[in-house]
């Protein structure tokens, strides 16, 4: 799924994916589900039936070429196929392209396309369709908020013959294959693309296993099976049309309502089981759940390294080491989310496990660090002071689009930070206020999660070039700048040697941990709850569920 500034699954703030830079092995470790396989209860695949999935958000726009939201990817996936498929372990598989060749300079990608594929409107899929899709993405009129940004050096697509498409870039562009495997580059019918943004916002047409039957904004979407489907991704569990006759996404924003609907059997599966309801779910013999840790940056706090108290590394370390984040996270989320100890999620390719042991919770040591940094005084309320000034840090927050109780989390951290003398002020405002202050670096600390399959996520989070300058909103929230780190990140993009890349990314993770440019909080986890009558829910590489292989038994 696309990571977003707030990791929201509501349609308010869209996010950025900037898919994995290089497609390598993606180790989805530590992603234990609820235990046994879903298939154990639902038995063998059954043909027909309707699966109703309660979702917690809807996209602003169905066209994933334009929309950057992770929820747009979820909604478009049943309808759109991709040129290549990326599995949960990072392997690439044929899909609409049967094979592909990359030139030595990584500027040219030649795709051999599958023959006999038709869009659901009856038009054929061919090289011209590939060209139409990529051209549509980069067309300014599309107003692509993410996909176009991922292929910035795109020069054009040449239709070599009906089943060969050659894509050229002005400079080497290694992340391309990873990008086209995502729904944001899903292949749409050129005939539908011609109808323009307003039509695409409400109706997309692809060659996928399902076809949109009815879309009602703020209520949900109904898909019906594409009976002619014969071209599933090579890594799918079956071939041919989808098992399900119909697939329905029902919008159930309120956590307790979504869970109540599942618990009472009104829906077959739900997205984002509220952690507080997990115990209830486990007690219901008709239900089970599965989860995937999202790869990429954890949900972390990032101290602003360029101004205020946090420009002093000792103060940053004290803030990280002096608060017992593990206990706060464990209690708030009932153990459903793993507390983080590194900048990256354990399921990210290139995750460096040793960063987990580079620091530990130690309130006494944190106090010593603050003493060293000169924050030796105490005021009447118990906050530390220096030259009569209180140790106050301001954090950006937007309550209205909070998810996963992050507002409550902040309040608990605030209370914990007070114990070591920090006055953590949570500045609540509107999205626009947030964006304005975010762009200027007008804060002491801010928080995001950043989902990407690859450790290149570190480049978004810590590269000097990724500091917002007021016109461009980017993700180096710590406003961290380090020549060594910049160098390692650049070199990691230049090589295909996996071991060498892992080594470079490990160096980056160690350095930013030593510099306390990040305060790890928890690993975002996609929790799907479902009735035991449901089987075959599979996962995209970026940890959202897919339904091509799913089925539902009679009872």
């Amino acid at each position, binding site marked *: 799924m696309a990571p977003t*500034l707030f990791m929201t699954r509501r349609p308010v703030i869209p*996010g950025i994916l*900037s898919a994995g830079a290089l497609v390598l092995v993606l180790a989805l470790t530590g992603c234990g589900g609820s235990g046994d396989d879903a298939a154990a209860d639902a038995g063998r695949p059954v043909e027909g039936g309707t699966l109703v999935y309660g979702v917690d958000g809807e996209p602003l726009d169905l066209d994933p070429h334009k929309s950057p939201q992770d929820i747009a990817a979820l909604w478009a996936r049943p309808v759109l196929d991709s040129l290549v498929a990326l599995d949960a372990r990072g392997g690439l598989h044929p899909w609409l392209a049967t094979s592909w060749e990359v030139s030595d300079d990584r500027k040219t990608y030649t795709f051999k396309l599958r023959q006999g594929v038709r869009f659901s409107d009856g038009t054929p899929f061919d090289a011209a369709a590939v060209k139409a899709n990529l051209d549509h993405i*980069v067309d300014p009129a599309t107003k692509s908020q993410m996909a176009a*940004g991922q292929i910035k050096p795109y020069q054009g697509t040449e239709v070599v013959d009906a089943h060969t498409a050659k894509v050229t870039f002005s400079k080497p562009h290694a992340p391309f294959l990873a990008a086209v495997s995502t729904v944001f580059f899903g292949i749409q019918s050129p005939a539908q693309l011609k109808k323009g943004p307003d039509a695409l916002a409400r109706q997309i047409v692809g060659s996928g296993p399902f076809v949109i039957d009815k879309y009602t904004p703020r*209520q*949900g979407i109904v898909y019906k099976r594409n009976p002619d489907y014969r071209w599933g991704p090579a890594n799918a569990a079956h071939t041919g049309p989808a098992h399900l006759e119909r697939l329905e996404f029902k919008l159930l924003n309120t956590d307790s309502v979504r869970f109540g609907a599942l618990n009472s059997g009104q829906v077959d599966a739900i997205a984002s089981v509220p952690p507080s309801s997990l115990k209830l779910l486990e007690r219901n013999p008709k239900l089970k759940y599965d989860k995937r840790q999202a790869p990429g940056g954890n949900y972390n706090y990032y101290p602003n390294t360029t101004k205020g108290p946090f420009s002093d590394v000792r103060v940053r370390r004290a803030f990280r080491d002096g608060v017992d984040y593990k206990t706060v996270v464990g209690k708030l989320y009932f153990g459903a989310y793993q507390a983080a100890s590194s900048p990256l999620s354990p399921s990210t390719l290139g995750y460096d496990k040793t960063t987990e042991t580079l620091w530990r919770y130690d309130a006494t040591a944190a106090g010593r660090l603050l003493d060293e940094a000169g924050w030796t005084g105490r005021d009447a309320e118990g906050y530390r002071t220096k030259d009569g000034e209180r140790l106050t840090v301001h954090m950006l927050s937007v309550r209205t689009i909070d998810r996963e109780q992050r507002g409550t989390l902040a309040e608990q951290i605030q209370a914990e930070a007070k114990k070591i003398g920090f006055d953590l002020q949570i500045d609540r405002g509107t999205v626009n206020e947030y964006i304005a202050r975010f762009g200027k670096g007008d804060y002491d600390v801010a928080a995001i999660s950043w989902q990407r399959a690859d450790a290149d996520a570190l480049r978004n989070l810590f590269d000097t070039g990724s500091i917002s300058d007021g016109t461009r909103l980017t993700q180096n929230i710590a406003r961290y700048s380090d020549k060594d780190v910049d160098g390692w990140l650049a070199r990691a993009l230049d090589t295909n040697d996996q071991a060498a890349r892992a080594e470079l990314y490990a160096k980056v993770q160690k350095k930013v941990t030593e510099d306390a440019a990040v305060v790890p909080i928890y690993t975002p986890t996609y929790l799907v709850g479902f009735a035991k009558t449901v089987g075959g829910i599979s996962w995209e590489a970026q940890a959202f569920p897919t339904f091509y292989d799913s089925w539902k038994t009679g009872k």
Partner: protein
Amino acid sequence: MKRRPSARVVRAVLVRLGASVLVLWGAVTASFAALQAVPGEVVDSIVGTNDVTPEVRAQIIAEYGLDRPVLAQYGTFLNRILHGDLGRSYRLDQTVGEAIGSQLAASLRLTTAGIALALLVATVLALLTARRGRRVRALSSGIELVGVSVPGFWAGILLLTVFSFQLGWFPATGGSGPSGLVLPACAIAIPVGALLTQVMREGLERALEQPFVLTARSRGMSDGGVRLRHALRHALLPVVTLAGWLFGALLGGMVVTEQIFSREGIGRLVVGAVESKDLPVVMGVVLVTATLYVLVNIALDLLYLVIDPRLRGAR
């Protein structure tokens, strides 16, 4: 003599309409100013924090005229409204007219159903409890107090838990179908009904103290007859006024109910629009709800004349 009152009514309505236009202009201007005051650039709220190319940014700025002075944008906006064009949403790939049009019916259905139910409940309760024994009134007041003060969110969840999740009588989300309308309408009717009951009972009690009640009773009219035929009419006036006000307030403030019951509606549309500084949609909703509010109040003024014939002859 019969014509004069109706001519007066027509003139009164025209004056009201004229004043309403001023009210609408004020509402639109005030919200335009308020939204301008919110920090952050509009183009940023359209692209969010996304990695857009400079060309796309330029395209957005040009398309929405965001590089023009605020006054010019305001002028264009007013001018378009006069021509019935509410403009185009920044975020929805829709015109504002389409966006509101697709949501308005659902909101109106819910508001109307909620208020109708509340009126029904309030009338029955007030008739049954006005000037009754202490205990009956205490019980009723207690229930009303709970009804008025219970948070909408909680009431909605409670209704769903009992009637949908446990008893299975109604679907958790029914879209716009009648069975899906019952629970959300109840959720609205609880606080509104409680409030209306209080007002209506007070009106009834005051009316029941009037001399004409004694007259009616002395002519041998039954207690029920007195309440229904005479007192109720008097009690209705303040209730109708209040219901009209509530209609406007509810239309704009249904976010919680819409959210819990996953319904379409103006409330969710406007919340999303305010969050993302989607100026045209916010203005459109303000204008449409203000218009509806004005129309409802004119209709209520006419309704007064039906309820209380004495007003027809009045100045």
